[in-house]
């Protein structure tokens, strides 16, 4: 496992937990609804390539839940401030699901500190007639099963013995996700109008069998972001970085040039 550390960073008075490991160009990876409180295999592989920075968003994990937090727009400004405070330049920004939506919201506001953008099955857009899966109406088991194409992975996840702290964190994450994404459901009706502002190389990665955010949404992002590339990963659900790690890394390398290597 790559060397990594967890630290608490205060940005404008809000404390968040940040996992950090590796060296080289910075990659800021923004997690989805499930959070990122524990170092994961995909972080190991990204840390071989980058100075990997994985914060837990305000309202998630062991981070504060600030009163100012209402929506993904608030988070996008928060992370623009975060990058400025850490003095990050030439950032490879990546995000999955809710975190992908967040990364897109940051990029339409400012790409000044960005080198590339990788959106992994991101929320943020809506196509009329294309219905997203309803993670709030599914039971825990339905949610886990619908997250993965490979049901063996879902079963392993369901069988895992989660401790009390992680169970509480999962609940906290779920509450914050509802607050941010209940309505409009996992999208911002205005985001599509401003995607043309994204002027850094962009990669859209999607699991072909995503039951949460249908793969049709990849086309809407490709149409919106000038020059965006798209990789659709077969036999893959909503979390390519977990379910198809090698394919995910191939896509990351294609857009970032493999960075540190």
């Amino acid at each position: 496992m790559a060397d990594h550390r967890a630290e608490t960073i205060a940005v404008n008075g809000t404390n968040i937990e940040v996992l950090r490991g590796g060296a080289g160009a910075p990659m800021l990876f923004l997690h989805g609804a499930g959070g990122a409180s524990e170092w994961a295999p995909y972080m190991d592989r990204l840390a071989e390539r980058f100075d990997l920075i994985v914060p837990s968003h305000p309202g998630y994990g062991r981070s504060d839940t600030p009163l100012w937090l209402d929506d993904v727009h608030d988070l996008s400004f928060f992370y623009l401030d975060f990058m400025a405070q850490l003095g990050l330049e030439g950032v490879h920004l990546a995000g999955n699901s809710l975190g992908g939506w967040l990364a897109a919201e940051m990029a339409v506001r400012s790409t000044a500190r960005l080198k590339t953008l990788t959106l992994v099955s991101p929320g943020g857009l809506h196509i009329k007639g294309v219905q997203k899966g309803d993670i709030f109406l599914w039971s825990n088991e339905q949610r886990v099963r619908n997250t993965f194409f490979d049901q063996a992975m879902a079963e392993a996840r369901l069988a895992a013995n989660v401790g009390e702290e992680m169970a509480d964190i999962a609940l906290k994450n779920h509450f914050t996700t509802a607050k941010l994404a209940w309505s409009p459901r996992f999208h911002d009706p205005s985001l599509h109008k401003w995607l043309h502002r994204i002027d850094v190389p962009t990669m859209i990665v999607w699991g072909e069998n995503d039951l949460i955010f249908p793969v049709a949404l990849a086309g809407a992002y490709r149409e919106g972001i000038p020059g965006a590339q798209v990789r659709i990963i077969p036999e893959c659900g909503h979390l390519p970085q977990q379910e198809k790690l090698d394919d995910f890394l191939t896509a990351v390398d294609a857009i970032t040039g493999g960075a540190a290597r």
Partner: protein
Amino acid sequence: MKFYFFHLMPYGPLDPDWDKTHEAAWVTLPNSYYDPKEGHKLYNRYLDELVRADELGFDGVCVNEHHQTAYGLMPAPNVLAGALARQTKNAKICVLGRALPILDNPLSIAEEYAMLDNLSGGRLIAGFVRGIGCEYHSSMANPGYSLARFQEAHDLIVEAWTREGPFPFDGDHYRFQYVNLWPRPYQTPHPPVWVPSQGSQETVDWAAHPDRRYTYLITFSPTESVIKNLNAYRDRCSAYGYDCPPDQLGWALPLYVAETDAIAKKEAGAAIESLFNKFLKTPAQYKLPPGYSSMRSYKFVMEVKYKFREEYLSVDKLMENGMFLCGSPETVFERLAELQGKMGFGQLVTMLQFGTLSAELTEKNTRLFAAEVMPRLRKVGVSPTVAAE
């Protein structure tokens, strides 16, 4: 004690096998299960049952709001309250209640309630609720703002009722340039407010506050938890520095009275089981969306309350835990008198039709209750001092 006749207006003809192919009686149960011809008969039958309650001397008749479910056919309860205002003579018209936070314009509730109050000559009791969790899935209102929007919508409505308009309202969730209610309510300063609840501490603290002193109505809960919650409310009143009068405490439950205990159970058993096992059957995440409650109470409700409700609730079990009171007039009278002594409530909200209970049995139940039980409890729960614990 005062007596109210509460109707949920369930879709009784619901195919009882619906749960072989669907997981929830709420939100997602296809409306192809609903037959408008049956609905036409039901609405008229149910209104007749409410009107009869007025004739039999009940102090109030009650309707309420639920959406997208066979459990209750009143997404717009004030439509039926309007009919009742014309067809009843004496009873209070109780809407228990409108769900404030799921609307973007709560002034429409202030307007409808004011209309009903005028139409009925001041017989309206205005219920304010947050709406159960399912309504947040149906309306897309964000459950994370439910409590804050409830309190702010309440402030807006009461201000609209009591303050000379036009005035601006600058809330965090609701903003209006011109609040200027036409008509103003008939009652002064405004209709009595009731707060039906299943016992959240936030609601207790808020409703008991000396600025409000709202009637707190605990609904559909095991006796043990009704006692605990009503006592918690009374304690909160004491902590605020006043004694809670019986009028400020209410209990709502399904009841069935017949000639003997055995006949009562036999006649009501299947219908009460349909209410709790068919019409209320819904997975926990439908009823408790994230953010609707605090995380602490979310965990409690998920782990304790809903675990229990996942079991089949037989009539015996429902009677044992007190969610259903059933028996001869003597049995029902004694139990209510005993519980009134323990809880100090002065408002009893009876549900005498439930689930699939037929028109004939509903009428029989209502007449027996009104004739044999009600008169004997009239003198209980009216004194200005609460019965000692």
